[in-house]
């Protein structure tokens, strides 16, 4: 007979592992990936493959030769960082830039803080912001989408966010919201299709991998804030303006997949909502009045830094704190 195990309770486990959570997020990203290949062709595939391979390789090399510790590349976190970094890039970006971004994301963003669970900032986001500041030209030249990526290399054009920022009321009123929903506009290739990202969101909620608090509070805040600043042009215009704020740029990708990164977001429902609302406010402020057309990356980055503070002060609702009688 086997030696009997004696250990403290509980003797049961949910069966959910870190790797399953990470692969669950990857599954949720499949619809957006398929749409990006449809609109941006083989380039989207190449950038993603390069980013994932580089992230996993850098994590392997750092763990094996620098830290000389346990290898954790199978837990899915490096793969996820690679995919999220790629999704935040234009499809025509030179691949060597992707590799530089991966090195920053994994090397500085993750491993220099002590690896999984210890990083303050979302590694993919750190990589993206590093690239945005270092290679502004390549990072903001977005090819226009075309089915199966035909002729992608040729045309580049202004993004919806640029038009929104310039604030030409007539031009904005004429933008087709449907294109933003399906992803038929220029942008980083993983962020363009609102519908695909929302399908991923529903999957994540259904599988209980994330909760609604962060994405919903970001999206609602951006919507309401956008309504407030555009309502002076009439309700109809304000609705178009606010819908476009949500469906264009990286808002949904960021709100659903970047801001909800376990390690860098708050632990309590109240903290998550506070974090989401502040991300929403900072995003709109940067989008409308800042130097950059897109503010979400910076907003999440700033709030990543505030997360330990939020965790310190936002306590969960304790049992029995409000004693109800009657």
């Amino acid at each position: 007979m086997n030696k009997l195990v004696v250990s403290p309770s509980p003797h049961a486990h949910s069966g959910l592992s870190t790797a399953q959570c990470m692969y669950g997020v990857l599954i949720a990203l499949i619809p957006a990936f398929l749409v990006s290949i449809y609109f941006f062709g083989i380039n989207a595939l190449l950038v993603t493959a390069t980013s994932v391979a580089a992230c996993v390789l850098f994590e392997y090399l750092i763990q094996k030769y620098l830290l000389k510790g346990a290898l954790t590349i199978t837990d899915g976190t490096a793969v996820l960082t690679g995919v999220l970094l790629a999704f935040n890039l234009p499809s025509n970006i030179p691949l060597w830039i992707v590799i530089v971004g991966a090195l920053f994301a994994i090397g500085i963003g993750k491993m220099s803080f002590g690896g999984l669970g210890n990083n303050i900032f979302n590694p993919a986001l750190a990589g993206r912001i590093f690239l945005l500041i270092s290679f502004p030209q390549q990072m903001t030249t977005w090819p226009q989408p075309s089915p199966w990526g035909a002729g992608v290399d040729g045309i580049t054009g202004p993004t919806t966010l640029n038009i929104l920022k310039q604030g030409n009321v007539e031009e904005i009123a004429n933008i087709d919201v449907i294109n933003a929903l399906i992803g038929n506009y220029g942008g980083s290739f993983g962020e363009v299709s609102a519908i695909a990202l929302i399908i991923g969101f529903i999957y994540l909620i259904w599988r209980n991998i994330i909760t609604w608090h962060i994405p919903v509070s970001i999206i609602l805040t951006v919507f309401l804030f956008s309504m407030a600043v555009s309502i002076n042009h009439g309700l109809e215009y304000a609705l178009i303006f606010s819908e476009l704020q949500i469906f264009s740029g990286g808002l949904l990708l960021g709100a659903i997949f970047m801001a909800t990164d376990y390690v860098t977001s708050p632990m309590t429902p109240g903290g998550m909502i506070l974090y989401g609302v502040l991300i929403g406010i900072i995003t709109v402020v940067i989008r409308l009045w800042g130097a950059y057309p897109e503010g979400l990356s910076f907003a999440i980055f700033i709030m990543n830094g505030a997360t330990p503070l939020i965790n310190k002060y936002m306590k969960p609702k304790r049992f029995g704190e409000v004693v109800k009688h009657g």
Partner: protein
Amino acid sequence: MKTFKIGGVHPRENKLTAGCAITPAPLPQQVVVTLSQHIGAPAQCVVAKGDTVKVGTLLAQANGFVSANIHSPVSGVVTKIDTITDGTGYQKPAIFITAEGDVWEESIDRIETLITTCDLDAQAIIEKIDQMGIVGIGGATFPTKVKLMPPPNMKPEVLIINAVECEPYLTNDHALMLAKADEIIVGIEILMKAINVHHTYIGIEENKPDAIELLKQKTAHRNDIEVVRLQCRYPQGGEKQLIDAVIGRQVASGALPVSTGAIVQNVATAYAIYEAVQKNKPLIERVVTVTGKSLTRPGNYLARMGMPISQLIEAAGGLPDDTGKIVLGGPMMGKATANLDTPTGKGTSGILVIPDTEAHRQEPSPCIRCAKCVAACPMGLEPYLLSKLVAKSDLETAEDRRIYDCIECGCCSYSCPAHRPLLDYIRLGKGRVMAIMRARAAEKK
């Protein structure tokens, strides 16, 4: 459907023995009766080596207010009084009895007829419960009489019967409800009289529809007993969670549950009270679920206290070759033992035989701060934080973050995708923090 408001998990129910009627276990040849089968001071032994005892003979007397009498579960001869390692893993004084025949004390009414009338007044009922060694047999084994005598400034308003059985695998309460519904209802009436309340809720989780139906039917003609169907959610059988689920009131931190106006008793305790008060029968046997995926005859066995668990496992088809762990109780809060001679006691609700493939914990990996433990904690604590604070011995902050509120239900460790032993740390820290708090309180006095 009703349930408690904060946290909780829903583990795989694995109620393999649901629908198994109660089967009498074979009489033991020898029993080992430990003197502390309850929370509180161990009982004081009143027999000596060589004494002849009958079933129901008093073996040990309650030693103080929070303690309980212990009676002989068999007839025979006391062969020695010694210490053994019981299911808690601690050394406990125990009385060894070699069984001869099955002779019961004459005072015990062994006829099965239902006696519904009870002429005793509240005080006499509580005395009887005390005398018969009744403790809460849902698992906590708190002496029942203590719970029935709340501090004078706290007036109980309702009785809540805990028939939740939220632990996976266990079905002993379920089987008892199906077999002894009438007796349980009389037990409830006796309890209501003892604490002078006029309303009872019986909380049952929805995975026992036949028990809900039966008890509803038996109580349909009266409006003082109400069956409450509850959503399946662990740890709903926790006293605080059950009060919240049934009447929507939350026990304040550090307060007695009765401060909400509710007194909670387990359904098997209600049955034991019926037997004690109406049949003069001490708590000497109980239903034990013997279960596990590899057992050939898992079931609900009526077993005398003090028999070695090996004998119950034998009755259930013998210990399977692939066994990796044996747990007294359910998988969430039960205690593992490697000793097959461990005797059962008043609190042994089940014996769970876990195959080796499910017996081992997985290697912990770094905390990814996914917040699943925070969402799962039914007390609204932050298990990830508490375990880190304890690991670095920051007990002051752990106290500030209310580590003492932990009910050790295990929802945090259960839900941790990184397999971190959260409850191990919290349990350790809770013990140390509570010792500090007690010392501080003593100093103030």
